[in-house]
Every structure is written in C-alpha cells, then in structure tokens.
C-alpha cells in the first residue's frame, strides 16, 4: 500500500464521525417522571458518594449550589387546580456534548464508556463548559471547601476531593463503574452484567424511578425502558444526544376519570 493510500485511509478514519463506535459500553439512565416524587434521596446519596462539599448558607444565597443531581420543580396551573412537577436534573452525559468541544484543554471529553468525563487535574477553570451546557449541571468550585472535623472521615477514598478553581459534575459514579469492570475482569467475564453497577442516586431511589444500565445490551432493564413510548429527552431540539432519558409524567385529566 502506498503512502498516499495509507494517508487516505487514515484520513477517512479520522474524518468518520463514528471513529469511536467501538465504545465499550453506552451507559444510560432513564428517569421515570411518573414515579419521581421529588423526595431528594438521590441528592443526598450523591453528596455522600461523591464527596460533594457542604457549601453553606451564604454560598447558596449567592447561587452556588453543589448538587450534582438536583430536583427541578415546576408549578402548573393555579389553586385549586394546581400541579407541581418534579424533574431530576443531572449531567445528561451527552454524546454530542457542547461542553466537550469548548474546553480549551480537553479537561472534559468522552471516555471509552461513552461517558462525559471530567478530568479535574487538567481543568483550568475557564467555566466555558458550564456556559455551554444547556442543562446547567456543571458546578464550579468557587473555593476550596472544607469539612468540619470529623465529617471529613466520611469522604469516599475512591473519589477525588476537588480544589478551588475546577469544574465538576455528575460522573455516573464512574468509580463504581470502574469497580464493576474490574470485578468482571477478575471473574473472567468480558462485560459487566446488567444491574451489577448502579450510581448512588439510582441505588437509593425509593420509588425506583431511576434505572441505569448499558443500552448496548438489548436485554438490559434500561434498554427496555428506552422502548417505552413515554421516553423522551429534555431539550432534545438542541441535538446534544443525551444519555439520560426521561419517561413522561402521566397526567390523567381528573374530569375524564
């Protein structure tokens, strides 16, 4: 093969959008809004698992929350015919993530699991990713946070404690995914079994509204959820191709019942 041919082949490869089609997994979460009650157990579970700081009243008053998963609430109607709808909002792990393209130092990129990974060490804190993220799920460390002793003894050793000046966000509990993959490897399996790994929020959800798994596996619980006719993605018109899929809330007209 001549050099030109080799070059052409390489060029083709690097120009192909699907150059990365050999992702090991495609982790996906579905959130059933008809099950979600807004109890926020997921929020605390995430805070415990991922060493999220306690930012304090003053910081929250300034608008600097640090919950990787948060519950958004929207009122609909007026008293007495009023509804409150909850929607958990976390990093959507977009396949076409706007935050990834904007990072000048590639501190955020797509990893081999199809996850939108954030490399704290590489982050220089331009905060551009937070601007580019339409879901507002990237959180910036406005200062180095401290834990009152001995609260720091709870910190999860599998997760970095972030310092001031870096961006952070939901990782789908990548440390658990790593562990599950290691376990699978130790067991001589090629792949992680469905249900073997769950992020902290999914694990704790009292209504089982959150389901997590690999959508490449057609038998996985999450892949089945994706076939639900209620499945949709938030802000789908922005073409960010999120890996978090919501199942529509069901509202039956009370008069019709």
């Amino acid at each position, binding site marked *: 093969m001549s050099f030109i041919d080799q070059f052409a082949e390489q060029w083709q490869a690097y120009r192909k959008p699907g150059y990365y089609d050999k992702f090991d997994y495609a982790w996906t979460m579905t959130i059933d809004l008809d099950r979600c*009650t807004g109890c926020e157990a997921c*929020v605390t579970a995430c805070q415990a698992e991922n060493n999220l700081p306690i930012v304090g009243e003053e910081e*929250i008053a300034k608008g600097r929350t640090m919950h990787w998963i948060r519950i*958004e609430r929207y009122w609909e109607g007026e008293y007495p015919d009023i509804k*409150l709808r909850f929607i958990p909002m976390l990093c959507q792990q977009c396949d076409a993530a706007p935050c990834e393209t904007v990072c000048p130092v590639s501190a955020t990129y797509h990893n081999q699991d199809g996850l939108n990974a954030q490399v704290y060490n590489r982050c220089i804190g331009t905060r551009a990713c937070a601007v580019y993220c339409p879901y507002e799920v990237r959180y910036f460390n406005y200062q180095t946070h401290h834990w009152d002793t001995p609260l720091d003894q709870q910190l999860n*050793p599998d997760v970095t404690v972030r310092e001031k000046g870096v961006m952070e966000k939901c990782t789908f509990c990548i440390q658990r995914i790593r562990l599950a993959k290691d376990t699978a490897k130790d067991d001589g399996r090629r792949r992680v079994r469905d249900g073997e790994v769950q992020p902290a929020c999914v694990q704790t959800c*009292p209504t089982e509204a959150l389901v997590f798994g690999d959508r490449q596996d057609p038998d996985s619980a999450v892949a089945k959820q994706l076939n639900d*006719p209620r499945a949709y993605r938030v*802000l789908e018109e922005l073409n960010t*191709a999120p890996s978090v899929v919501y199942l529509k809330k069901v509202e039956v007209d009370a008069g019709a019942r």
Partner: protein
Amino acid sequence: MANIERRDFLKLVGAGGIGAGAGFMLSESTKHPLEYLVPYAVPPEEFSSGIATWYNSVCSMCSAGCGITVRTREGRAKKIEGNPAHPVSQGAVCALGQAGLQALYNPDRLTGPLVQNAERGSAGFVKTTWDEALGRVGETLSALKAAGQGDRICLLTEGVGGHLAELFERFMAELGADRLLHYEFAHPQTLYAANQRLFGETRLPYYDLQNADYVISFGADYLSTWISPVHHSLGFGRSRHARPDARGYFVQVEPRMSVSGAAADEWLAAAPGTEGLFALAIARHLVEKRYRGADRDAWAAALDRYTPASVAEAVDLPAARIERVAQKFAASKASLAIGGGTACSHTNAVATLVAVNALNYLVGNLGKPGGVVFNPEPAVGRDTQARHATYRAMRELADAARAGKIDVLIVNNTNPLFTLPDAAEFAAALQEIPLIVSLSSFPDETTAMADVILPSHTYLESWGDHSPEPGVGFPVGAVSQPVVSPLYNTRATGDIVLALARQVGLDEALPWPSMEDYLRDSWRTIHAQVSGGTEGFDTFWRDILRAGVWGEDTGRDHASVSVSRNVIASIDVGEPEFAGAEETYPFVLYPYESNALRDGRGANLPWLQELPDAMTSIVYGSWIELNPQTAAQLGVKEGDVLDVESPYGKIAAPVYVYPAIRPDVIAIPIGQGHTEYGRYARNRGVNPIRILAPQMEPETGALAWSATRVKLTRTGRHVELVKTGGESRELGRDIVQIASSTPAQGEARSVALQSTRLRSIPITVEPT
C-alpha cells in the same frame, strides 16, 4: 532625592507585589495534596486497605426501621446503602437515612460523659469519667429503689423497638418504676386508636400500595414523612409502573400540598378537619353501590346523612368532585384509603381516621393485594405502643414534676423541649426535677438542661435489633451491628442501662456485661423457635448478621376481622375545634414535618440543612407558606417577614408564596428553630410547635397539632429566602413532558434512542 527614593520604593512595592503573586501561582501549581498514611498501625479484624467492607444494619434515623448496608473503608463508614434483602426498604434509602453518616461523624457530638457544675442549662458542663457519672446516677437510683420510691424515676426515651425496649422495661421493672415513656412528636397515636376502635387491632396495619389501583390519602404524606416513607415510595413506584396492565391512581386530600400531594394524580384541598366528612361521603357511596356485607343496614343507617351534597360545603369542595372520587374508589379493582399526618391532627382525629379506615373495610380490601394487611406480633422485642407518650401523658409528667413527684428523669435521645409546645411548660417542669440524666449523642435542647450527660453511641456504633413497626404483614427482625469502632468515649444506650443496673445492684436480674451479650442471649430464643435447634446458634447468628435481617413468611388470617355494630352506629366525625377565635385569628396554622429534617432531628446534619426543601427549594431556614391570594390580601411578597401569633405565642418568619395551599391556611415546616443541637442547627429559622395551642384529641390525648388558629402581622422586615430554585414555571418550554395516558408497552417508540442525532455514536453490541 526624596522624589527618587519614593519612586524606588514604589518600584520595589510593585516588583514585590508581582513577585508575591508569581510565587503564589508557582506554589499553587506545584503543590502536593496533604496525604495521610493508613491510620492503623495494627489494623483491626476484617480490615484491608483499599478494600471496602459492607455491614448490614438497621437505620435508626426514624422509626421506620429500613435495612441498610454500610460501606466502610479503612475502618471508616463511607456510605449508607439500602439492604436489598430487607423487606421494608428493599435496597432504597431516603435522604435522612443517607445522612446517618453525618450523625456518626457529626462535629458537635458529645464526646464523653459530662456533669453540669454550674446552673442548670448553662454552659457549665465539665468532663468526667464514666465511673463517676454512672456512680452519681446509680447512687440516686439505688436510694430510690431502696426506699421503694421507684415511681419517682422516669425514663423518657425516643421510640425504640426490639430488645432495647425490652431492656428498658426490665430495668424499670427491677427498679420498681413504671414511668417509662416513649416519646415521638409524630407518633401516630390517633391511628392506633382508630384501628383499635374499628378493628380491635393494637398494631398498625400494612398498606399494600404496590398492588393498589386507586389510593386516597387523607393527609398522610406517606411518600415523605409518614410512618415508613421509603416503603411507601417503593409501593407507589411499583403501583404506578411495575405492572403491565395497570397504573395506580393516587388522590391526596389535604389543605396544603405535600410531597405526596404533588406525586398524586389529584390533589383536593379539603377544609382542615373535614377529611373525615369526605371519607364518610365516600363510605356512603360504597355502602350504596358496592358493599354487600351482612352489616350493610347498620352502615347504611349510620352513613345516610353524609351525602356528597351535604358535606360539600363543610369540606369546601364541589359535591360533583366528591361524588366522582367516591365513584372511582368504588369502581376500582384495588382501592385503598390511608389517613394520617398533619391533616389528620385535629381534635377529631380518631373519628376521622375511623372514617378513613372504614373505607378499607367497606371496599373489602382487608388482607387482599392492594389493600390493608394486618400485622402479626413483632418478631423481636415487644409491642411498645402502650408505652408511647401522648401529649396528655407528657403533661401529666410535667405536672408530676411540678408537684415534686419526680426525682430522676433519664432522657434517651428524645427532645421534648423542642417538640412540645411552649404551652406544655415542660422547661419549667424540668427545673423541678432534682436529677436529669441525658443519654443523647448530641447537645440538644433537652440535653442542655441535664445534670449528667451519659452520651450514647450513634446507631452505627452500637448493637441492637429492630422489628419494623408497622411491619410488612409478616414477622421481620433485623439486627443492627456496629460498623465502625466508637469514635469517642461514648457507650451504647444498652450498655449504659446495663452499667446503671450494675450500679444499682441488679447484677442478677440483668446479668449481661454488654448489650451485645444481651442481644445474643435474646436471639437464642428466636433461634430455638426458628430452627428447632437443628443448626448451631453461632451459624445462625453469623447468618443473621450477614443478611442483616430475618423474616418469616407467615401472614395473618383476615377472615375474622369484623366491625361491631356499636362502632358502626357511633361513626361520626364531629367538628374540629380550633384554639383561637376566627375573627381574631383568621388562619389555621398547619405545621408539617419537613421532608429532610422531620421533627427537627435532622437539623444538625449539614447535608439535610443543605437539601433543598422538596416543594420550595428553600435551604437552611424556615418560612411561612401563604396562598398567593392571601399574600395579595396582606400585601406581602416572598421574603417579607411576618409575625405569626397564636393565643399561645408568637414567632416571626419570612413569607413564601405557595401556590398550593388553601387561602385560609398557612403552613410552616417543622424542623428548624433549634436553640441548641450543634452548629448547623442552632439559631436557624423558627419552630412552629412552640406556638401551638395545647389542643388534644379527647380520646387519646394526642396533640392536635394542626388545631391552632393564628393571625399574621407585618413586621416591615424583608429577607431574601435562601433557595436553590429560580423561576418555578415552565413557561411553555416542555421540560417535564406529559403523557395523557399510559399506552401499553411495546407500542411505537417516541424516542429512537440509539441515533437521534445525525452524528451520534453508532452502537455495536458485543456478544458477552
């Protein structure tokens, strides 16, 4: 030259400043994080660096008793996860349960025994040794026991179950004392009474939400705070979407929308205290259309006057709406009615709950899937319901103290000074008790009044066992074991009691050296029952510890349940009574348990302080919820501070305009307003319990905590509410999308997941 010197000086300053900055940046870029070595020279058993160890235990953050699995690393608890084997929680944990770690590692924990050396209630606590502290308490107890004055001893505990409750019983019995009170603010006294009256049941039933098709909840915030929220949530979720052919329909009747109200399909703002009328109107419909029991005539006679039209005015809902709910309830395959919570905390609470529970009887769901299942006796320990203190019992205790009839008060982890209204005058009563001993882990309000503090372990450091109350329809026992070695010089509650017993000379009656031994001994009995002695106890015990839970799948027979005609005839809800005249006090105060902080117990956990309120997203504070209409009438907007005045006191808090509350009701969350209880809780927000009137449900003596009227006055002050949410309307952006019904599974997909985007990543499935 002076000129030049100044210039030189400025240059130096400039250079120095820039140099300092550069140096700082250099140091930032090259610094190494602080590192600790593995904290053990000689590691304990089961310790392996870098490898997590899981321990099954029981959550004690509330009385539901969910099973938990605690992940530990290097001897430290890292994460609380649900124990999938436990029938109550089945792997799920709520926010409060997750935050149990912060109870363990709370920076404000009491680290060792303390005695008050100065005036009671002051900061004059000094450290002491366990021997000395126990000695002082033991001395008093011995003297009283010797004098046969056991009735001058009172043990006031949080609601505990299992063998710790039994140990308390034994200890008090040995002392000749009968003042053993379990006190929980939100204990469903009235529900027990209603079940007792209607069905003759002494225990709470199990509500099978997961198989229910149509659920009406009268005020019970079952998904967030009521009795066993995690288990109810599991049921709710499964009822909604786990069955292929059915989706549970939920109706919530309450004056202020709770978390459960938001999750429900229909929220009906009945007037406060009229939930029972509503239920009776449905009951009448059931008798008319569905109920075919032998006592139908009695029911028909008793319910005849409760037509939807006749109750509509009092309930303040259109008769047609009540009618429609009744029809649906009667027509659904598996209908279920539950009642409780703030909405059922009026002076007519028992009657209301009788009416609600009658619905279950009339719809015939007793013992059926999606219905009410009665519980057997607890698997471990004993039934403590008789020991649960009502407001009346607490008043009697206070009266006794004032009369000088109490010499020793031992308080275990309960905080009546926070959860009793000021009208109870409990603080003053405490002053009359010569010796107050607190076994709390935290410096709460009641502990601050103690003379001797014998701090107990948190539940993650102690041995214990638990039988969920209410159960899940069959006997369940769970063992809670220490997951970390004790952080401080504290002792498990059981150990403290046993040590006191030794001080008093009860070595023979209570011979166990520790709670662990007591527990093992007690479980030997269960072992004997279960296995008939075929396997060794040690194996059994190890298996129990490993599983964390043990259950026996034996249900109850429901055929025998019947309602006596006397009870049927006496069914009547009655008008709720409110303290305060409507003219002077135009609003009904609706205090409700906060989703995360509950009755205030979660206020010292920073995760929960920082957890946005489920409905308003407010953090770290208290607020008054006003209907927009009410707010407009008063001319106030969000953040304006109002005085809330009842006939029994006054508190001030900022307004939050809450679109889903009745205009004649104002709501304030319970949980904040601590004056003690550590750095995260202290001096934050207000405690609405303080200004409650001492209204009681007459039969049980339970506090009718939503039976107080208040008036609002503007203070002219304004604060910015600290909340995480912004605009609370969707503005037509279709973020939470709505399906009008649930099409069956397998229909055309509305989302093609794998490649909606032109350039999304193609999916290849590799064979496993």
